[in-house]
Structure formats: structure tokens, C-alpha cells
């Protein structure tokens, strides 16, 4: 029979990844719950998944494409920006959901035991459905503008994986801190608002010129540029930039998980 030992934790938290795997059914239930509840009692339902990036695309196309005439690597600006916004919308949504997830699941955390990292991880999964729905629009636009995806499309899962990894990593940091200081959530809204402009979502990396080295310090730069490249055959960023993005995501995820695990014992008392 299984024996559980309860005692004060000392020193560096153990990650206990096996336990997370043991609770995979609960994890799936929570993801399923978030998906089901997401668009309940809304009029247009899952159309929201499309409306968000689509509206942003229309606005940006008008202001940046038409008025400011920002270059777009020689391809029509609407599809250029949409290919970036699609992944960015997933990323910022996932970061936001994950960061508020521990506080919004206070009812569970103060009443039931389960490995806590499940909560922010589950929160980052819901957006993948929205991503899939919004992808349909991109495919429609590709047909309209006569684009064929490159062979590199096979790397899409890898790009999604690192986007997810980074969002979950940031989610660990912010969701745990948010339990102690609630204004983290407000700060985060602010960060995400600015971060999109620091990322080549609505402009190509090529316009950065001499400042390119600053822009590529942003881990999302390589990911967004590649995401656009595999669909629209725009220039692929250097491999070095991609490896940097991947390593960045891995480091944020692992440090975030350790940080989360070290704060998690205080959740029930502080929430």
C-alpha cells in the first residue's frame, strides 16, 4: 500500500515530476473544464478566438500597413501581421491565464491536495484551441493571397512547444508571486501590452537594422519570425537566434518551476 509522508519541507524544493504525471486525469479534467467554460454564456462563442487576432490585424493593417507604411518583407501586410498575431495571441493569452490561475483556483487550493504546478500548466493549454480555430483564418488568407506553406511547416509543433514552454515558465513565476502581491496581474497586463511592440509581430525583424541585436534579445523574436516564415516563406531567423529562444524558454520554465514549488507551500495560508 502506498504511504504518504507529511513533514516540513527543507531546502530546495523537489520538483516531483512523477507525481504530476500521476495526476494526469485531474490535469485533463481541469483543461476540459476551462475549455468548456471559456465561451459559456457568450453570444458568438468560440468566434471570439477569431475576432481578437482578426480585429488586431485589421487595425494594424490600416495604421501600420496603410498609414505608416511599415515594410512587410514584400508580402501583403494583412497576412504578414496576421501570421504574427496568431501566435502572439496564443502566447499573451496563455501567459495571462496562467498568471492569474493560482489565485482564481483558490477554492481548489485551499480544499484539496494535488500537485499545484498542474494549475498554471492547465491554464496555458486552453489557448491552443483558440489557436487552432484562428489558424483556419490564416489558411483562408493563404488561399486568398496564393501562398503555399514551406516544408518547414513540419517544425510548427516545435515552435508551439517552445511558445508554450515560455508561457508556462512565465506563468509559474507570475502565478506564484500573484498569490503574495496581487498587483502582479496589473503589472503583467502592462508588460504584455508593451512586449508586443518589442517583438516583430507587426513589423519584420529586417527593419531593425543596426538595432537587430537588441530585438533578438527578446526570446519571442525568433519564435514569431520563424512562425511567419514557415507559413509565408519570409526569411528564417538565424539558427543561433532560435537556439537562444529555446534555451531561454527552458531556463525560464525550470527556474519558474523551482520558484513555484518553493512558494507553493504558502499558497493555502496566503491566498
Amino acid at each position, binding site marked *: 500500500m502506498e504511504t504518504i509522508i507529511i513533514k516540513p519541507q527543507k531546502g530546495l524544493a523537489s520538483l516531483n515530476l512523477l507525481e504530476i504525471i500521476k495526476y494526469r486525469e485531474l490535469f485533463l479534467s481541469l483543461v476540459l473544464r476551462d475549455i468548456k467554460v471559456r465561451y459559456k454564456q457568450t453570444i458568438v462563442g468560440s468566434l471570439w478566438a477569431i475576432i481578437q487576432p482578426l480585429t488586431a490585424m485589421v487595425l494594424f493593417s490600416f495604421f501600420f500597413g496603410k498609414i505608416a507604411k511599415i515594410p512587410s518583407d514584400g508580402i501583403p501586410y494583412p497576412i504578414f501581421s496576421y501570421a504574427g498575431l496568431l501566435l502572439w495571441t496564443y502566447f499573451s493569452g496563455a501567459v495571462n491565464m496562467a498568471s492569474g490561475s493560482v489565485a482564481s483556483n483558490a*477554492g481548489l487550493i485551499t480544499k484539496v491536495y494535488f500537485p499545484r504546478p498542474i494549475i498554471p500548466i492547465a491554464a496555458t493549454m486552453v489557448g491552443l484551441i483558440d489557436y487552432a480555430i484562428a489558424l483556419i483564418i490564416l489558411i483562408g488568407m493563404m488561399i486568398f493571397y496564393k501562398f503555399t506553406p514551406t516544408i518547414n511547416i513540419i517544425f510548427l509543433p516545435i515552435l508551439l512547444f517552445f511558445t508554450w514552454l515560455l508561457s508556462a515558465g512565465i506563468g509559474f513565476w507570475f502565478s506564484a508571486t500573484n498569490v503574495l502581491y496581487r498587483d502582479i496581474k496589473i503589472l503583467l497586463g502592462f508588460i504584455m501590452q508593451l512586449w508586443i511592440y518589442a517583438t516583430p509581430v507587426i513589423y519584420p525583424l529586417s527593419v531593425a537594422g543596426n538595432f537587430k541585436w537588441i530585438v533578438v534579445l527578446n526570446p519571442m523574436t525568433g519564435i514569431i519570425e520563424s512562425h511567419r516564415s514557415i507559413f509565408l516563406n519570409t526569411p528564417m531567423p538565424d539558427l543561433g537566434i532560435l537556439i537562444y529562444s529555446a534555451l531561454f524558454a527552458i531556463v525560464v520554465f525550470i527556474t519558474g518551476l523551482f520558484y513555484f514549488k518553493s512558494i507553493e507551500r504558502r499558497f*493555502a495560508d496566503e491566498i
Partner: protein
Amino acid sequence: MKFNMTDTVIQAEHVSKKYVISHYEKLTTFSDVLSNISSIPKRIISKNQNSEDFWALKDVSFEVKQGEAIGVIGRNGSGKSTLLKILSRITEPTQGIIKLKGRVTSLLEVGTGFNGELTGRENVFLNGSILGMTKKEINKRFDEIVDFAGVEKFIDTPVKRYSSGMYVRLAFAVAAHLESELLLVDEVLAVGDAQFQKKCLDVMNNLAKSGRTLLFVSHNANAVSQLCSKVIYLQDGSIVAQGKTQKIINDYLSYSTTKSTTLFTQTENKSKEVNLRKVYLDDSQNKDKNLFDYNQAITVNIEYEINKEMENVNVWIGLQASDGNMVFTTVDCDLKPNLLQNRSIGYYKTHLSLPGKFLNIGDYLIIVGIVKNDPLKVFDRVEALQITIKPESNSEHIVFKDGPRKGYVQPLLNWSTEKLYE
């Protein structure tokens, strides 16, 4: 199931839990930190003087064997909820070690994780998996669960459309069909009307009889004596006694909590139109105690200030039983409607006498409120005092052999009996 009756399933050794209470207001947002930045050096230097350690549990050790039904009893603040939270792994102990054997489920409330937007069916699966059931197990017992709850017709309706009774029944039905070997149950589970409470206790009784181990936390002596064969009695974070139920329950009921609140006070506040200042018990024989003999009358005194001339002010007292049900509510103007007329600024005192030979044996909470009608405005509503009614010291005729009589009140009523025929 194969097990040895002498198996220990819970072994707790020297478990303690410390909370640090800061006398400074806690800084939980950056703006708090910024606006209190000048006090921070002081906070750091004087850390020890301005925060206080509070031990919610002190050196608690006990053992529970396979198949036992154990009650943990104690008054509010005795540490029983903290103990349950530690056993449930929601918060960790500061010291000590606990070993749990087998599959553990803790029920700290009914319907943890229930989501109003989801249907009954979806919530059964969600709640089941939160409580540690696998999808396969829930599938297997789904019909039983729905049947038990009696909500077949509404199983595909979002639970936000359920009546509160249906909601609680469905939520409890999931809990009642858990297959774990060790159940940790909080008293709040026994909420709802008397009939439902009985159903809950029956289910837990059956679980206990089927060889499952049950740890039931409560301040309700009645529920504990119905369910449990052994009891752990907690007070101020320590175990004061453990053993056979009846003996411990008697100790529990007859113990006078000298430290418990017999006086509620609030400071003067002229900015509040009406302000409750004091609530206290005044009984000629029992000055500082809140323990009363069944036949004793109890006087509740209330002092309040009115800082602005106004009409329609009234004071009420609600008496709440330990299971959370309100026994009665009484208002100062019930028989004196002229109290609702214009009241001038000043300091007032009112008192209410509860007759002896009226309340049944048990714990009661005295809730005091001051409100203004038309439009309704609540100035204060406080759970002011706790009182305990115990059997009279010289005779125990109002207590049945197997425990106190049922019910919140125990009036002595006049029966008249005559012989009709031989």
C-alpha cells in the same frame, strides 16, 4: 479487501504548526510597500517585537488504526481545522511528521471545484477527478451517484440552475461514492436541512462500517458521538484527551472555556452613525464564564452609541446552534415599537434575559446586530459571544441515557395524562 485490523493508517508524531502574526498591517501590494517605505527599516529592526508566533497546533501525536472512526473535537480556534488541513496536505506542518497509508481523500467541503456553468454530469466527472477518482471509477458509479442525488431529470442542466438543495445533494453524492480507504471529513459536510444531515451521517456511518477509516472533525458533540468510536479532544492546539467517545464527549461538554470570549468590545467611533460598543453576559453567579446550567437564566447586555439623531434604529440578537442553524432571532422593538421613533445622540444600554429551562444542552453563538430600517443599513453584525449549556449539576433528568435529547430547545412542558379505561 485484505487487511489487518491492527494496521496503523495514520501515525502523527509531534506535529506543530506555527503562524506568524504581524502587528504591522501586512503589505500585500507594491503600493502598500511604497507608501509604508519609511516604516520598513523599523519593521526589519523590530521584527521580533512586532510579530508574534501563534502555534495553531502544539506537539500533537496520535495513531489511527485501519477501520476506525475517529472524531476530532474542539471549539473554534482549537486547531482542529489546522490539523485537518495538514493531514489533507493543503498546508504543511512546521514540525513533526505524519505517515498516511493507503488512498486518502479529504472532504473539506461539498462540491469542491463545482462550476455553475457546467452541467450536473460534467460536474460529477470534474468533482470526482478532483477528489481523486479515475474516469473509469466515476463511469462505473455514475448511475448510482445520480440516483443517490435524485437529479436524473436535471443531469444535463447547468448546475447554476439547480436549487441549493439539489446542488448539495449532487455534490455530496459524489463524495459518498468515493472508493478511498481513508476519509478525512470536515463537519461542514453536514450542512443543509436536518433530513440531509441525517443522510450524510448515515453514509459516513456505512463507510465506517464497511472497513474504511474515517477521521471526522467537528465541534458538534452530537454528530461525533453518533459516528465515532474514539475521539481526540483538542484545545488551544494541543490534545487534552483521547479515548472512548462517551467519556471524552462528557469532558468536552462540561469543560468551561475560561479563555473564550465572554466580552465583545469595539472602540468608540464617532464617524459611524451607530456603533456597537460592548456585548457581555451578566449572570449573578457566574461572572467570567460562558458555561451555564440548563436551568439558569442568561442575561445578554448590549451597549451602543448613536452618533447621529435618527429613526428606525433597532438592535437584534440571533442565537445560532453549533450546527449553524439559527434557533431564533429577537429584536428590541418586537414588543416596544416606540424604540423605532427618533433617537437622540447618546450612549445606550439594552439587555435581554434568556429564561432558564429553555435552551437544550450544547453550544450556541450569540450574534448581535444593529441596523436601521427603510432603507436598510447594517451598522454592525458580530458573532459576539459563545455560550455553552450543560446539564444541571444535581440532576440529569433532561439528558437521555444515550446522550442529550434532540432539538435546540428543551422546554419543560405540561403534559396531562388520564386513565381512560382498564
